[in-house]
């Protein structure tokens, strides 16, 4: 048997949907070329949308407005609780309301550069174009964005850019945008256009004759496993950061939908591109169940520093100015504290590795607001960041108005995801992936306030246009029902998997496996990766998987609300996905964005890309659990933004 790491390189893959021609005309052209479905026929076509975050909520609402019959799912008790709600800082848009030199082209440029030249130009340009419409749409829905005294919208700046293009609603932008989408969705539910299934989790994808035709889902309250059929399936199920156990994701965010789709034939692209967010609250002990993010917007006014001397344990107030190292301002004078996330995270890791970290275990750096409070006054700081400061104080029991915050990087976002073309369609016809679940727009590193932008762009504007085209070209064919052999097979597999989990009756809890996997991934596939470590992880993961199936203990039955069963089933998928992440990280021997290979760095310790060798998106094809996958490369062509070594100095 060959080892998992001996992957095969298959044929190249290419996006065939983006039209040729000037980049700013492509989306218009695509929309014009897209076939339309007669409004009268839309009612006869069903689209399944899994997930109700920014992408899923906006897609479900918009598809229903267009006249399609939408069947939507979320594992939460209400579509309003999807984890987009936790996004704090803001949403980018190239409105140029500040007259500070912003434009669609600049947002496009910043995003491609910020992504370290590993994203697809056509997609990113479209995102920048749509960004403008998103703000209009959200304002019309009643999203209470921050405003100036004149009644016009306020903006602030975010990492990796030099313009002020981030729209925000105090520190709860994600919440407000999500409620906007949720309300639009609610209106469609009331109108009978969306059939909503809360507390229902997708467990597998139904593919019939090579097309996505439905899903298998479990009612989390009754435990009933059911099949749902449609003419197209949209996955808006978010990222897979919870592979790391500790992350800023919600506790129940999971990778099951995308991983099951991958197992059914959808390629998984750039799985190793994970974003480690620089400003999170450091962990306090082994009991830690998740990490909490402090919005990047804090870096607008907070200054990051550590003591110059190693092992300096004096309280921060007793460390004089000249014994402090404001390392971001020192190393990157032009962007200072506002360098992109990957750079800020790595810099924090470096100073902590040098032994200059602060707080328990030396795993933290200071984010200091003393200067801001002196400059703007406490009231102004409070107005801008009050809720974040309160949250920090609640968790740490320290007053950030008096003592500098302590922050440390944590897993936050996954740029990788299901491979999609310009239409956001995966390699399985009829299966679409939107929002964080796909891979397309952020390359190897996502800029702050761009996730909200992408989720809403995909859901409100892109998907509804491209699904139209798919449904028009593939009109409603034979009915699929639960009697179909392909359906029976998927259903049986799902039931067997859950029954097996319940029957092992071992001696380890689901969380203990999750934690073990997470620690392994953080150590070897976290902020810095190297060949030896990745090999170690690849060796260890199958062992954990084997042990899991021998020792897992899931109490209760499958016919009830069983949170342990839900967890265990998600871990099954993490244990496979983690392996692919490590392999992807191992094969990509360059450093780029969030993926830092220690073997590929400049003398100054900056990430070094190898464009000749790795200027592609890696799309992996599943071949079986634990067997080497097949790599399909999508060459990335840069016609407008020419790859340079990123410089924020």
């Amino acid at each position, binding site marked *: 048997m060959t080892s998992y790491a001996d992957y095969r390189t298959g044929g190249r893959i290419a996006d065939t949907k983006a039209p040729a021609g000037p980049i700013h005309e492509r989306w218009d052209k695509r929309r014009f070329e897209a076939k339309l479905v007669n409004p009268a026929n839309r009612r006869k076509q069903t689209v399944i949308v899994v997930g109700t975050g920014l992408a899923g909520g906006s897609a479900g609402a*918009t598809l229903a407005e267009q006249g399609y019959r939408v069947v939507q799912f979320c594992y*939460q*008790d*209400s*579509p*309003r*609780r*999807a*984890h987009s*709600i*936790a996004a704090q800082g803001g949403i980018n848009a190239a409105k140029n309301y500040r007259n500070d030199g912003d434009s669609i082209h600049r947002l496009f440029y910043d995003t491609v550069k910020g992504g370290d030249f590993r994203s697809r130009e056509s997609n990113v340009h479209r995102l920048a174009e749509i960004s403008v419409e998103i*703000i*209009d*749409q959200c304002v*019309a829905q*009643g999203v*209470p964005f*921050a*405003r*100036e*005294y004149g*009644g*016009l*919208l306020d903006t602030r700046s975010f990492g990796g850019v030099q313009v002020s293009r981030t729209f925000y*609603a105090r520190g*709860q932008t994600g*919440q*407000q945008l999500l409620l906007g989408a949720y*309300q*639009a969705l*609610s*209106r469609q*539910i*009331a109108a009978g256009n969306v059939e*909503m299934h809360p507390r229902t989790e997708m467990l597998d994808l139904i593919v019939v004759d090579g097309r996505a035709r439905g899903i298998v889902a479990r009612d989390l*309250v009754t435990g009933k496993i059911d099949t749902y059929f449609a003419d197209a399936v949209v996955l808006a199920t978010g990222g897979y950061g919870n592979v790391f156990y500790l992350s*800023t994701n*919600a*506790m129940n965010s999971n990778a099951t939908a995308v991983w099951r789709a991958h197992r059914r034939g959808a390629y998984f692209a750039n799985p190793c591109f994970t974003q480690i967010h620089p400003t999170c609250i450091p962990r*306090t*002990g082994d*009991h830690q*169940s*998740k990490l*909490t*993010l402090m919005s990047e917007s804090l870096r607008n006014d907070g200054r990051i520093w550590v003591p110059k001397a190693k092992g300096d344990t004096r309280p921060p107030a007793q460390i004089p100015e000249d014994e402090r190292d404001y390392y971001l301002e020192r190393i990157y004078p032009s962007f200072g504290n506002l360098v992109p996330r990957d750079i800020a995270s790595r810099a924090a890791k470096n100073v902590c590795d040098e032994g200059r970290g602060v707080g328990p275990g030396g795993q933290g750096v200071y984010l200091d607001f003393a200067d801001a409070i002196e400059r703007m006054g406490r009231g102004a700081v409070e107005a801008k960041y009050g809720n974040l400061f309160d*949250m920090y104080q*609640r*968790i740490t*029991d320290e007053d950030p108005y008096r003592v500098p915050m302590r922050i440390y990087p944590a897993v936050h976002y996954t740029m990788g995801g299901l491979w999609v073309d310009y239409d956001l369609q995966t390699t399985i016809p009829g299966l679409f992936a939107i929002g964080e679940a796909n891979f397309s727009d952020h390359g190897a590193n996502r800029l702050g306030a761009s996730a909200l932008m992408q989720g809403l762009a995909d859901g*409100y*504007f892109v998907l*509804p246009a491209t699904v139209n085209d798919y449904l028009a070209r593939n009109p409603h064919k034979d009915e699929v029902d639960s009697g179909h052999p392909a359906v029976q097979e998927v259903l049986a597999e799902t039931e067997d998997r859950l029954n097996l989990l319940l029957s092992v009756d071992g001696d380890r*809890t689901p969380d*203990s496996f999750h934690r073990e996997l997470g620690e392994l991934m953080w150590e070897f596939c976290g902020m810095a990766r190297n060949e030896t470590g990745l090999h170690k992880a690849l060796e260890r993961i199958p062992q954990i998987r084997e042990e899991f199936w021998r020792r897992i*203990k899931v*109490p209760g039955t499958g016919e009830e*609300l069983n*949170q*342990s069963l839900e967890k265990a089933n998600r871990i099954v998928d993490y244990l496979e996905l983690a392996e692919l992440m490590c392999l992807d990280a191992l094969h990509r021997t360059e450093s780029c964005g969030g993926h830092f290979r220690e073997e590929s760095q400049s003398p100054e310790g900056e990430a070094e890309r190898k464009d000749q060798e790795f200027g592609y998106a890696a799309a992996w094809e599943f071949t079986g659990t634990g067997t080497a996958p097949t790599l399909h490369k999508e060459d990335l062509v840069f016609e407008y933004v020419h790859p340079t070594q990123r410089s924020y100095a």
Partner: protein
Amino acid sequence: MKLTLRVWRQKNADADGAMSTYEVDGISPDMSFLEMLDTLNEELILKGEDPVAFDHDCREGICGACSLVINGDAHGPERTTTCQLHMRSFSDGDTIDVEPWRASAFPVVKDLVVDRSAFDRIIQAGGYVTAPTGSAPEAHATPVPKPDADLAFEHAECIGCGACVAACPNGAAMLFTSAKINHLNVLPQGAPERETRVLDMVAQMDEEGFGGCTLAGECATACPKGIPLTSITGMNKEWLRATRKAGKR
């Protein structure tokens, strides 16, 4: 810290429930309340017992999933969500009672998990602005005075957790409903549907079997987001205004 927990256990919606007593040891003051329950659940699983079911997700105080009544207080003794309540708010040796939200409109699903879908139906009745995708005018076409925008935001902060209902002696959902009505009715974008919104949402709220308001003020005290009691006053005003206008038509 060593604690005694008395937790409401109920097999499913139809079963009878009762308080069960558990001891937990080695609790750190830095743990969140839910992490303390995680610790208990890990022990229960290993003992082959059914772990305590409770709703939770983001664990950073914004999704509104967590919903425990701790020592008789919705979300416990601090003004925050259960997930942001830390064990430093308790002392070694304490006995802590943990119960689910209680209201007939929020039936218990299992243990500490309740069904809050009534809230979704209240929003579906009118808690939105009809603005189909693509129909929006330029964002700056309608300036919104900052005080109005701030007021709308203050009400829009509601996380839909249901603590207001849990704390209310009448199981009323007035604070939840009024928060959304005030959020949208204050903004120019929400103005065209101002009357139907309040009438339909209040009617749905009644339909769901929530109680009425006796202005006990418990909801506003329990609200982790600090939605003020005046929110309900604002809703009453909107309702009267809408009723008068409807009467004239």
